[in-house]
């Protein structure tokens, strides 16, 4: 089966129920996307599938066959992603940083859908867990990225 990861066409020979997360990490070797809970709660595994944020730890690879996957390493994906990453640096968001690839991909997904999200829209879209407690900064960085900063 084939998927496209960060612009590269990848041929995979794996079980159809293998979650996308483990195909990315252990088969393809793209490790920026993290495991946190395995049950779609924490969002550390968030990637974009055809530009929509999904929790890859529960997404069977068979469900994304032929689709376009963007991970945190997909630096040339879009201006939106570049703006989000720049805002994350400007606001010094990460602490341990482990959840941040998922946070960033969720934020990119939100901004691709909604140019200038309200606080309520951010609340609804960013359900990822950050145990270091960087939420205040995540919110500020999303607003800044939306405004082009």
């Amino acid at each position, binding site marked *: 089966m084939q998927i496209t990861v960060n612009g590269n066409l990848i041929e995979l020979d794996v079980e159809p129920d293998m979650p996308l997360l483990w195909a990315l990490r252990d088969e393809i070797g793209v490790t920026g996307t993290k495991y946190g809970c395995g049950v779609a709660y924490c969002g550390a595994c968030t990637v974009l599938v055809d530009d929509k944020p999904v929790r890859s730890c529960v997404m069977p690879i068979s469900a994304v066959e032929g689709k376009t996957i963007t991970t945190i390493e997909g630096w040339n994906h879009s201006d939106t992603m570049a703006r989000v*990453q720049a805002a994350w640096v400007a606001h010094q968001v990460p602490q341990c940083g482990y959840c941040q690839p998922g946070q960033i991909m969720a934020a990119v997904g939100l901004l691709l859908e909604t140019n200038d999200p309200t606080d309520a829209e951010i609340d609804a879209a960013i359900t990822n867990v950050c145990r270091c407690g*960087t939420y205040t900064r995540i919110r500020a960085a999303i607003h800044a990225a939306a405004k082009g900063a």
Partner: protein
Amino acid sequence: MAPAISRRGFIVGGTLVGGGLVLGFALRPWSNLPAARALVTANGGTLLTTWVKITPDNLVTVIVPHSEMGQGVHTALPMMLAEELDADWSLVRMEQAPADPAFANGGLARGYLRGDASIPALLAGPSDFAFRKIAEFMNLQITGGSLSVRATGVDGMRRTGAAARWMLIQAAAAEWGVPAVEITAEKSQLAHAPSGRSATYGELATHAADFDPPGELPLKPREAYTIVGTSKPRFDIPEKVVGQARYGVDVLLDGMLYAAVRSCPVFGGSPASFDTVAVANRRGVKKVVAIPGGVAVVADNWWRAKQAVDALEITWQEGDGAQHSSESIYAGMEQALDAGKLEQDYGFGDADQALRGAVQVVERSYRVPYLAHATMEPMSCTAYLKDGELQIWGGFQDGLGARSFAAKSAGLAFENVTLHHTAMGGGFGRRGSTLNFLEQAIAIAKQVDAPVNMLWSREEDMTHDNYRQASVARMKAGLDANGRAIAWLQEFTEKHDPEDATWIAYGIADRAARYVNGTDPIPFGPWRSVDNSHHGFFIESFVDELAYAAKRDPYEYRRELLANAPRHRLVLDAAASMSGWGTPLPKGRGRGISLKESFGTIVAQVAEVSIGDDGQARVERVFCAADPGEVVHPDGFTAQIEGGIIYGLTAALYGEITIENGRVVEKNFGDYPMVRLADAPKIEVRILPSGARTGGAGEPGTPPTVAALANAVFAATGVRIRSLPLRRHDLRAPVEAEERKLG
């Protein structure tokens, strides 16, 4: 109060191959430094020493002996050194020290204790727990106790930077034949104005190594700081936003395999037997092995390993642990307190006598449950044992301690173990001294002829943590005719550390705390702020109750008890003022105040809550004032306090690990929920640096939070929270009018 430091004992210099200066802060430099040199030469072709090197390209590289877990220490410590060195910040780099004794931060403490050096005046005195903690951490590379900046930074980085600067100036004076006093050092440049000569630090670094710095060098006055006290962008952030930071889980080696484990659900249990037939022929599965307390499946992909380990039929030997439940543990704690055989924690005056003389005695009991660390990266470790050499890759708060543990666990000499540091997906105390996961990774390595990357599932992580202890506290206070507290007695179960976690700043002359240990059968581990996490709740909830018993405003009541604690009172005042304390709030909202000093930093918080239709508290805003003495990196400090508050809120609202039949009931975030962005309050932090000795940042934000929230709930509803978490309480429940009236 210049510290007396024996001269050659602390600073040692040397030259680098290829030119340049290395400078270390060490007690046994004559034995330590060559070891350090050899180690890093093998690693990168360049020599390093304990703290800093200056190379001919004019780069200053600071070697940091602590682990970065997002607390910013890899930036803050170099800032402290660069400040005294007058380095150009854009030319400063950071490297993490290898896990080798030459880089241990305990050198300081060893020296003090053996009399190799006088104790600096600022570390002396019975109340300075920083010093005692250093002593405890002898020969360890501990990143904990909020100590990195407080100990390594203040006592090591600053003095080393000042010494390097002095040596560079001597070198310039000698080369140019001019008096040293006429030479200026600024932004990594030396200059002699009268002759117009100048040179970079890098150009003079090799020559500088010829000079032996004096033992006592003046440190910069605070007014002269240009680096410390600013918020330099953290070194570790850029790679974290592009997915390039490498955590323990991300280790990728040639021929590497993956392991998933299942441990006996009962603490102390082990597998009696397991049947591998069901999984042996599964795709990718390479081996099934017994490990301490459980079974591991090794496969070519972690998901395949996990599927297989879940499918294993395992018969457990549960052992005696199966008899325990949270209720039986709490009951045991109550019995132990009833039995009255308590040990003294602290005592001033005569609390019992003063209680007998009080006009009113208030008694309350509180309890807190077990808590898991729940780092975002579950426990992970890669290990490879080949030809008697063990290599370990992972994130550890104490690299040396982990290396030493690994050597014992593998039955190898310390020298035959190499530890490669990775980034840490959260620490909070979990990746320090409690290394059950490392033991399992090594057991796997012993049985597999390939490097194996072991990752615990979230379920394994949550059910085999080393937990913040459950604890029961009985508080008793005596009030005089004016309602002022004149006697204070705290009795509680399970004391770990830090020693001053129960201390109060309130001016109550007759006060004591007593405890009983041995009531807790569940594995303990230090959890962000350790004992402060629950003593903040016990003490500050109880003071709040005293205020209401005295029919006083809780802020004013505390304030009066702080007449002789001006730093604490300033911090309390600031938090109250930030919150608009005393101004009306919409119906159904309430404010709660709390004050707790921990790790040398005084923190006051006001939480503002509302109660939802579901009977649950929602935290709207948290106002926090903090006096860390001196702040090195204000934005980093603020980030740590913000994070500490969120960590405390998660514990207060949701945090509960329950024991049933010796097992942890909660398995994943579904039943051990986390505060998320939508639940996170607005947080305002104000830093009030008093100029006192530098306090911690990573932990002190957490201890006041739970009580601030619980006190706010009382103000809003009249429901007094005496057990956690809050989600176990229905805040719509009717309460007695009398008590409610006091809110």
